[in-house]
């Protein structure tokens, strides 16, 4: 399945990546090469094969719904780009 520049722009928006016009040409070509490699798997019939999501077909383990973490907000927020009064600051969302 070949991609054109507008497909790549659409995917980039879904992934919240910014790619300028010059880069788009290059990225489209590279991704086209990778998809050609991936498309080799279309050569065999897998209609009777169950998908394998986990190498041992294991399922998620559950635990009791109990609080196990201490509140370390100040310590954890030391890595944040911008905070105030314990909140994360971002550009204005609502006009």
């Amino acid at each position, binding site marked *: 399945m070949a991609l054109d520049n507008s497909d*790549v722009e659409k995917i980039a928006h879904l992934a919240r990546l910014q790619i300028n016009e010059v880069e788009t040409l290059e990225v489209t070509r590279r991704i086209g090469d990778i998809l050609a490699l*991936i498309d080799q798997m*279309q050569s065999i019939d897998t209609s009777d094969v169950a998908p*394998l999501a986990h190498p041992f077909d294991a399922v998620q383990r559950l635990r009791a719904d109990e609080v196990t973490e201490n509140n370390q907000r100040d*310590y954890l927020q030391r890595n944040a780009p911008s905070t105030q009064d314990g909140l994360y600051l971002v550009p204005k969302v609502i006009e």
Partner: protein
Amino acid sequence: MLNKTVAELSRALNKGEFSSVELTQEYLQRINRLNSQINAYITVSGDEALVQATAADAMRSRGQAGPLTGIPLAHKDIFCVRDVRTTCGSRMLGNFISPYDAAIVERLNHAGAVTLGKTNMDEFAMGSSNETSYFGAVHNPWDMSRVPGGSSGGSAAAVAADLCAMATGSDTGGSIRQPAAFCGITGLKPSYGRVSRWGMIAFASSLDQAGPLTRTAEDAALMLNVMAGPDARDSTCLDKETPDFTATLNDSLQGLRIGIPKQHFAEGLSKEVEQALQQAFKVFESLGATLVEVDLPNSHLSVSAYYVIAPAEASANLSRYDGVRFGHRCKDPINLEDMYKRSRSEGFGDEVKRRILIGTYALSAGYYDAYYIKAQQIRRLIKQDFDKAFSQVDVIIGPTTPHTAFKIGEKNDDPVTMYLEDIYTIAVNLAGLPGISIPSGNSNGLPIGMQIVAGDFAEAKLLNVAHQFQRHTDWHLHRPEV
């Protein structure tokens, strides 16, 4: 002092030949002298290391030392180490100071190991040459113009050049085994779920697994003994008993059935690697093993399936880097979308962006079945091929890589060529099996690696076979001149 295995260093520490503080100082001096050439470390935590070494010496004097107490190691920079910068080889996390220790870091700390620093790696572990690191390429200690392999290239180069006694790595499609092969050391990827992934920065969660990089299989067993075990904080870490992996190292290989995968000795394998493997098979035969040809008919599809599954999982995992809570944020965003897009585009390198785009595409509406489900179906076929092979043999042995280490810059402008570097290792991750690469030859001064694969949770068998090979050969003792 440094030219020793972990087992030898441990004995020397026990005999009082030197202290952990002296040993740590020796490594720190060597790092200081050589790291500017090799670029194996992104961060050296010398002060913290000396504090740990002092504590390890005290542990020993109280008679509480275990095999790793006082042994200096390096962590791949994918593992969170509390209050130390943890970058994952990316500008995105260039200033991230981890607020906690990864599970394996906790376990190795508890065992008294000394952390020298954090090693260089391909950005977010996406690469096979260590050239995608934001912090620059790592140089292979055997030939500084060549790559060390990747993505755990800094860890492999550090062990090979005696810049640490042992190192941690992570392996999603070959990222421990391939650099181990290129650097002439031993690298083990455990079974999926054997080692906790908690605190290991996620790339592809159904494939990622942490493991040791060491000089010898015996050292790998000593490290795995500490690293492995259940952890409630990683829901995919299996609740399985951990054997003593050193207990069976000396078992005889008499009657061992070795599978030779015919697909791994076909077109694409270089002559020198094939010849080294043929020599290795003679060694195994002399130890009483028998060779059986095995068929892995879908192995040629492993790279295709992997480049759907790994990017799809990566695109989901890497969505957390949004410039809000931690990581890079662009300057003066005009609105929220601008902040997301510019922070991510500035923070991620080209290869990471490519994989996010591929993964986003594979998971997008209308393509999910054709790509993601199809790849998971191929994944089951690959697993079934291994199951069938392991009904006939105990281990499968073949090359780790098609050839020896390539030149820096030789392959980094063509992603597909780079992806095919992992053609022998990827299927093992898809099937969740344990695999090890050990040195098995040398060509024009460059090491050759041999991959041994065992069935589910048979790491002890893998280490036994590797250790017996190392008892009867000396490839693992060869050192680069640096």
